[in-house]
Every structure is written in C-alpha cells, then in structure tokens.
C-alpha cells in the first residue's frame, strides 16, 4: 500500500512558548479513513495546519512521497484539501460557484477545466443545484458540504477535515456522514463526535497534550475505557 501522508517527529510551539506539538509521528495509507480524537487543546487543529504548510514546525511532513518544503508548498496545497471547522471562514465569495472555483482558478487552470471541476465537486457533495446560490444564505449543513466541495475541486489526494459534524442538526449530520462514507478519497478527520468515529472510521488516532497517545483499530480504542477516561473522552 502506498503512503499518502507521513508525519515524522513533528514539534511546534506558538509565539507565547506554548508547545502545541511535542513529537508527533504517524502515517496514513492511500484509501485510509482515519479519525483524530482528543480533548480541546490537544493539538489536533495545530497538527492539521501543518499538513499543508500553513504552519511549519520542526520535523518532517511527507505528502504523496514528497517532503513538504518551502519550494513545493504550493504544489502540496493542491494535494492536501484542508476543510476548516467554521465554513464561513472558507466561503468568502458571494456565490457558491465562485468559491468552489477559487482553488482551480488560483492554480491557473483553463476556464473549461475549472467549469468541469466545479461541476464534479458539487456533484460529489450532492449540491449540483446550488451552483449559483449565495453562500451567505445557505444553512450550516449546506455550507459544510460546499466547504468540502471547495477543496474537492482542487483534486486533492487527501482530505483533512476539522470538526465536520460540529453544530449540525441530526439530519444534516446524517447527510454528511453518508457523504464522507461515499467519497472515494483518503481522509483524516478531527472530531469530538465519537459516534461518527465508530460509524465511519476503521482506524483512530488519539491525541493529548501535543502527542499521539494511541493509534489503532477504532473498536480496540473505543473499547479501552481506561484510555478514554484518561484523555477526557467518553464511551459511545
């Protein structure tokens, strides 16, 4: 199996000296769907921001066999589709079309390819009819799906999602879970939604205080009550 993502001994401290990552090592193989859980402040979001070089700490990040460096940053950004927690941050254009087209346009793709990529991305998140809608007027669940489409249009090799189910009502959450299950793409998803983890992800990584404290089969981890309590998680 090919490695899609490999992180080697990653360290990172914020300006105020707070060490958010203290030696993180893991890898994700192509086609894997991996959940990333842990309490607030465990370093999950910080780790995700390293995967496409928004933040750079000490250590190694390899995407699709290429080491992330300053030189290939913009190439890596098209390979790692990072979806932020708050879709309002991601949707900064007036219409859905413009937002989904931002990535491909920035890459300098020709207009007809941009068109077809936008259509394919909207199709993938089941939002084809929303092309000309105003992002501002969508529901939270719709915004989340459009946010995912804005990175799918860049044709990424791995999708990285931060808290995709936060703030969704049960129906929107169900739609999202079905969508994530169907998307044929490697995925790393940070979440507090343990039932979502149980349902979707065969493998789970547990982070706390800037390190990985457990990495294994979801069933094993969710069955280990001592581990869960030690890191502020609850049994589903």
């Amino acid at each position, binding site marked *: 199996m090919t490695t899609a993502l490999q992180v080697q001994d990653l360290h990172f401290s914020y300006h105020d000296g707070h060490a958010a990552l203290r030696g993180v090592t893991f890898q994700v193989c192509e086609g894997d769907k991996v959940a990333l859980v842990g309490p607030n402040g465990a370093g999950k979001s910080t780790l995700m921001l390293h995967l496409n070089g928004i933040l750079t700490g000490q250590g190694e990040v390899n995407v699709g066999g290429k080491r992330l460096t300053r030189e290939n940053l913009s190439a890596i950004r098209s390979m790692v589709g990072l979806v932020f927690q708050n879709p309002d941050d991601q949707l900064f254009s*007036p*219409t859905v079309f413009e937002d989904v087209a931002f990535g491909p346009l920035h890459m300098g793709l020709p207009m007809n390819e941009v068109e077809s990529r936008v259509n394919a991305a909207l199709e993938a998140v089941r939002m084809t009819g929303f092309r000309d809608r*105003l992002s*501002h*007027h969508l529901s939270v669940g719709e915004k989340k799906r459009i946010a995912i489409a804005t990175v799918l249009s860049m044709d990424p090799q791995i999708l990285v999602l931060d808290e995709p189910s936060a703030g969704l009502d049960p129906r929107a959450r169900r739609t999202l879970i079905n969508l994530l299950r169907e998307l044929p793409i490697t995925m790393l998803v940070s979440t507090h939604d343990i039932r979502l983890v149980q349902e979707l992800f065969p493998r789970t990584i547990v982070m706390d205080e800037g390190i990985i404290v457990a990495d294994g089969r979801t069933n094993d981890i969710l069955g280990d009550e001592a581990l869960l309590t030690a890191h502020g998680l609850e049994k589903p």
Partner: protein
Amino acid sequence: MHYSPQPLHIPDGFLSFTVSVICWVISAITIGMAVSRSNKSLGERQIPLMGVMAAFIFAAQMINFPVAGGTSGHLLGGALAAITLGPWAGMLVMTAVIAVQALLLQDGGLLVMGANILNMGLITAAIGYGLYRGVSTGSRSLKLAVAGIAAWLSVMAGALFTSLQLWLSGTSQLQVVIPAMLGVHALIGVGEALITVAALMFILQTRPDLLGENSVSAQGSRGWMVAGVLITLAVVLLSPLASADPDGLERVAGDLGFLGKGVSAPYHILPDYTLPFLGETALSTILAGLIGVVVVGAIIVLLGQGLKAKS
C-alpha cells in the same frame, strides 16, 4: 501575520506645530458636526452598529492581497465606510479607527492625529459618499463604477492633503513629495477601488437592503453631493497645478505666511524637478516624477523584503 502600518499615517514630529493645530481645528469642527448630527438623527440602534463597524474597518484594513515583489495591497476604507453607513457615521467610525491606531499601536502620532483624521477619515468619507450619493438611485453597475472612482479619488485626495501638509510644515519639498505621493497612491488607490467595488458587489448581492433607499446609508442629504463634487474638483485641479506650477503654489503659501523660513528658497535638487537632458518640458516633469515613483517603490519593496526576512 502582523499588523502593517500604512503609508498615510503621519507620525509625530513630521508636521509643524501650526499645521498640526490647524488640521486639528478643522477635524474637531467636522467631528463636532458629525457628533451633533448623529445624536439628533440616529437611533439608539446606531451606537453598537458604528462601534462594531469601526472594528470592521480596522480588521478589514488587515485583509491584503499579493500584488508583486512581496508587496501587498489593502484597504483604507473611508469611502466604503461612508457609502455603507452614511457620511456622518462613516466619519465617526474612521475617526475612532485612526484614534485607536494612534493610541494603541502608535501608527500615526497624537499631535498630528487631527491631520491623519482629516486626510484618511473625513476627506475620504466626504468624497466617497458625495460622489456615490449622486448615483445612489442609478443602476447597479453605475453605482459600482462611481464607488470605484470615488474610492480611488479618496485615496488620491488623502495623499494630496498629506503631501501639502508635509510641504507646509517644511518637511518635504513640494516638487518631490507631490509626484512621489500621488504616483505611489495612484497604484494604491487602484487596490482600494477594486476592494471597495468587490465588497459593495458582495453586499448588493447578498443583502441589498443594507444599501437600499431606506438604509442608514441613504440618510445623508443631497448636500453631500455638492460637498463631494467640490472636494473632488479641488483635488483634481490642485494636483496638476501643484505638479506643474509648484512655484506658484509656493508663492501663495508664502504670501499667506505659511511657509517656514528657509524652505521656500531655491532648491539644490534639480531645479523645478525636471531632467536636465530634456529641458523644462511637461514630459520632463512627468518622467522625473516617474523616476521618483520607481525609486521610492524600489526602496519600499526592499524595506518590505528586509523586514519580512527578519521576521
């Protein structure tokens, strides 16, 4: 990401006492009018609106977009504030923004704050609103086009007033500061215009009610059109005049007793800011101005790169 100081914020020390005080008086009178109008005509709803919008302008000034060579464009926001909130509220919001930048971040001085408020807050709002008000019932594309022109002009007016104040203070030579400031801001103004138009387009598309006939922004009277057009005319007429005939302007200022001793005297930098091999033609003046712009631009790029490399 860092807060980046903007070129129009004059620090203390660069304007003379007299110029600073005169600007403070003009600004204080205008702000006083804005305060009394706002107290009278605006509902209680306006207070939190203006407060949060002041924070919006402050934050929106941090949105940047890469231009070239490590430089970036961003928004000043005076025209946008006045178009969206109405002229008086726009002026109060800009005053608050400039005051906080000076007090909290030392971006712009305290004694010269009157001048900074005048240049970046009051004039920009008057031009932005005055021109836009004239077409506020027109078609969407007309409104957007005029808003863009108004945004560009507001930046140019700010730059022109800043230059004049620097010159009257004996800090800069008129022949250099006018072409350099106007040249650089002609480009900065394009960024301002593009951002302002795109922001308005976004608002018109998403919440057209905020810019409609019954919105706060439509509260300014038609008198603003006159004010906006007059200030614009002054800027449009004064800039070429100042560039073409600085001696004339200097004579006027000298007669009025403005100029400090020793500044209005003959210059050692090229006489009248021309290139020797072209003689005293308009082309020569323009070329000399362009060279000035390129040199200043290059220095700014180099400084920017240097600072970036350090951080």
